[in-house]
């Protein structure tokens, strides 16, 4: 999912970890150093997204509860890669459906270990509100996704431990345990399956605060853009405790659309609709 919300690694991390360039499994640290190996895998995965510039996408979210009741949300999502590699990306989300929130727009300057900065424009109130909160772990629009599942998967957000390599579907994957470094995360840890060929995340399993299995996120329908950037078009999150599911469908992704910092300002929020 790193793929969606972009991110750069810090130069320091890069330097520290490896001299990876056109990373290959052969250059990974040995299996007797699982921490370095885990970090290297995450770094290589993150690197595949380097330099994407900006993207515009449309998002459809389908929520299903344990009784099978279904509800849909739609939004548009613009992202600007942060030039500062020590920080998270910027994004602007405009809600289209349900109708009563149409035109509501949310601007986020995401940060790695600090609370994100967030502003929201409410058309019914015709005002921009700044939201001050440390929380990134709550459900996004009532779905099974938390904002932290879904926003940038910068390398600096976790500590890593490589566990094993194993088959995942018709590919081979590295299985890496990630422990969030952000104090207010909703998880103790997650396991990420990253394939050994394209270094894209295929599956993530989340464990709650008591380290009990909570959710599984599956990525599918990967497509390659600009000959380099992979994007999954179908993210499926299943909550094992409540039986609720959410499918997140990414549509009409376009790269390098000419977005700039001024499109991610508080003033731009009001124009966003």
């Amino acid at each position, binding site marked *: 999912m790193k793929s969606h919300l972009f991110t750069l690694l810090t130069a320091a991390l890069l330097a520290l970890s490896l001299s990876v360039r056109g990373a290959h499994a052969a250059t990974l640290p040995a299996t007797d150093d699982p921490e370095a190996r885990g970090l290297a895998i995450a770094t290589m995965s993150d690197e595949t997204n380097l330099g994407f510039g900006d993207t515009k996408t449309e998002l459809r979210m389908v929520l299903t*509860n344990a009784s099978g009741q279904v509800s849909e949300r739609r939004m548009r999502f613009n992202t600007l890669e942060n030039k500062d590699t020590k920080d998270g990306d910027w994004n602007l989300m405009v809600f289209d459906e349900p109708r009563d929130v149409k035109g509501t727009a949310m601007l986020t300057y995401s940060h790695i270990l600090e609370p994100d900065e967030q502003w*929201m424009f*409410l058309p019914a*109130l015709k005002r921009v509100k700044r*939201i001050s*909160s440390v929380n990134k772990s709550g459900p996004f629009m009532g779905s099974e996704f*938390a904002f932290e599942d879904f926003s940038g998967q910068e390398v600096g957000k976790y500590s890593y431990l490589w566990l094993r390599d194993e088959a995942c579907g018709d590919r081979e994957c590295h299985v890496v345990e990630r422990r969030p470094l952000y104090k207010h995360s909703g998880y103790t840890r997650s396991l990420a399956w990253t394939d050994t060929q394209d270094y894209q995340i295929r599956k993530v399993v989340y464990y709650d*605060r008591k380290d009990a299995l909570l959710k599984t996120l599956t990525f599918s329908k990967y497509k390659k853009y600009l000959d380099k950037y992979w994007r999954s078009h179908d993210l499926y999150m299943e909550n094992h405790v409540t039986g609720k599911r959410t499918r997140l469908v990414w549509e009409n992704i376009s790269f390098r659309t000419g977005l700039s910092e001024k499109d991610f300002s508080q003033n731009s929020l009001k124009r966003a609709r």
Partner: protein
Amino acid sequence: MKFSVDGYSRFIVNNPILVIVLSLIWAGIAIYGITNFRFTNDYRYFFSSENPYLTAFEELERTYSSPDTLLYVYQPKDGTKATSAQALQMVEEITTQGWQIPFSTRVDSITNFQNTRAIGEDDLEVRDLVVDAGQTDAEMRAYVEETILNEPLLVGRLLSQDARTGAILVSLRPPRDDTMATSSIVQAARDLRAEMRKKYPNIRLELTGSQMLSQSFSEAAQSDLSTLTPLMYLIIAAFLVVATRSLSGTIATVIVIALSAAAAMGFGSWLNIPISPPVSGAPVIILTVAVADCVHLLITALVARGNGADKKTAIIESLSINAQPVFLTSVTTAIGLFSLNFSDAPPYRDLGTLSGFGALFAWIFSMSLFPALLTLMPMGASKSVDMQSRIMGRFADWVILRRKPLLLIMLGVALTSTALLPRFTFNDRFVEYFDERMDFRVASDWASDNLTGIYIINYSLAGDGPGGVSEPDYLEDLDNFGTWLRGQPEVKHVASFADVVKRINRSMNADRQSFYAVPENRELSAQYLLLYEMSLPYGLDLNDQLNVDKSESRLIVTLTDVSTVEMQALRARALGWLRENTPEAMHVEPSGQAVMFSYIGRRNFEAMTQGTLVAFLLISACLMLALRSLRLGLISLIPNIAPPVVAFGVFSVIQTEVGFWTSFVTATAIGLIVDATVHMLTKYRHARINLKRSAEDSVRYSFATVGTALWVSSVILVTGFMVLTNSPFLINGMLGLVVSMTILAALILDFLLLPPLLIEIDGRLRGDAPSAPTSTPTEAS
């Protein structure tokens, strides 16, 4: 037939060791199943899958979140406030630790409450109400207290109005297929309580909630099983020795009882029946059946010994005489117990199945192992038994002489009792099922006196289509319903989505109190909600209050320790209010455990009454076949049905409120009720048909042959069941009392009503003239 029984009996007394070994092997195989024991204390197991209240409950669980709870309630002992620095520190710790309790999905406390606050005109802050509790100063604590006392979601639920008592609520979702989930939850919850009590000795900390209620049910049942039940066995054994003066007979009886019960429980495990609290009552039911079987065999053998027969001959004679009636009582009792399968509640079905098999095991062991054991042990003549049969003979004469007044009095008692039955009302107060000796009762009473209760009902109220919860009209209705509910005497607290929206509205408008109201239009509410939801942390979201398309919200109502009758009354009033004041989509019934359990008493009693009647009809049909007499079969209905009726009739004089324990009574007593009737009738018929005696002489014969066995087994069982009245668990206590009364009623009716009935009906219809009393037959067969 007699010949083959005779051959069988000879085989047993001649090969006692072989019989014992075979019995033990057979018992061993059944008992081996115990290694697969599966316990369950999941209260949902009480409801069949087609039960509408369970369906509603599960729908609620799927739509929102699980309503299972643990509630920590605390109060500083020194009279300081529940918002003191130390108290807040403990709350913060329990809140954090609460997430570690198995299957917890949410922890709500005054420290992690997501407080919204306006900073200036356009900044909204959403954060834990208390951060770093240990560092708070007086000013901060005053702000916290003021915020809580003005927040309807918190006051009266997580902090009392006087700010002296506070609570931490842990919501859990134990998986359905893990029958031991509750035990692991409760274990972790108690460990946390112990740790906190040690760390904060100045704060009283108690633990209650729906999971504690579930656990208390099974702990109460288990505690009785390990203390009172053995005591009951002991008293029964002691009485048996006194009544029969036969130590060997007593030992053999106790072995048969224990093996029958153990084999039935093991067999149940082979059938994959989980051990739920009701099922743990099976050993006691099996005990009554086994005692009755053995006492008949023993007493007949002792009588024969008294008449000069040697040991083996006495045993053979006893087996021959009792083979048919013991078989008949076992089969009919098993039918009666299997009738528990009519119950709506699966644990009762299991109880019936297990006890039914237990009755059959008791029959097998008492007809094989029991005589084999007797053969190997010394058995002298019992003067006591001998004397008792003589007394029985004189007693028979008295009954026959006074049969007309007895008939009138007894029928009068039975009819009066029947007339008293409609006075009963079904009312369960679940907390009061446990007396003050139990931790859960103390904690719940204290919590209820100081802050809140554990009875929670939920209304899922629908708005107008997807997103409808944001409509001002809907929110106004919701708010008004909440206000109405808060005015009801049974209601402790109401958590309404309307209060969430009102609070956000205020915070979005610079915390101006004038905006503490439902927003003016739907878009505004929906957009506030979107913003607020974005700012909530893991586990503290609104998914437990809103469904996925935001067309319905859940109103959570906490009640005082209401009885089921009060609960149903409130439910009816609430529905009336909704009908009068809201659109049709909101005219709904509440759901939740408290609602489910409020119907369990009546639903089960109705199912069980039908089941018991069907069982008695089947038993009578069996007796008609076995006795080859339509008339005797019909007559048997009266002494079978009358004992529980009379017992409940007398009980109604003491108390007219009954609970769901009543469903157990007849099932538990049925072994003895049927035993008494069958033995009296088979002996009567034997005398009447085979010995061609008159009705009166046949009655004398019945008394002389089985009277002693009947009164001995009845008195033993009455005494045994009286032990149960000492239980801290009301279900067992009441069961002990009313079963004792039922057995006593059965004995009295079989002695004082059945014989006059037989003489007046059977005697008259067969047209033989009442004869003068003749000498009492003392020899058997």
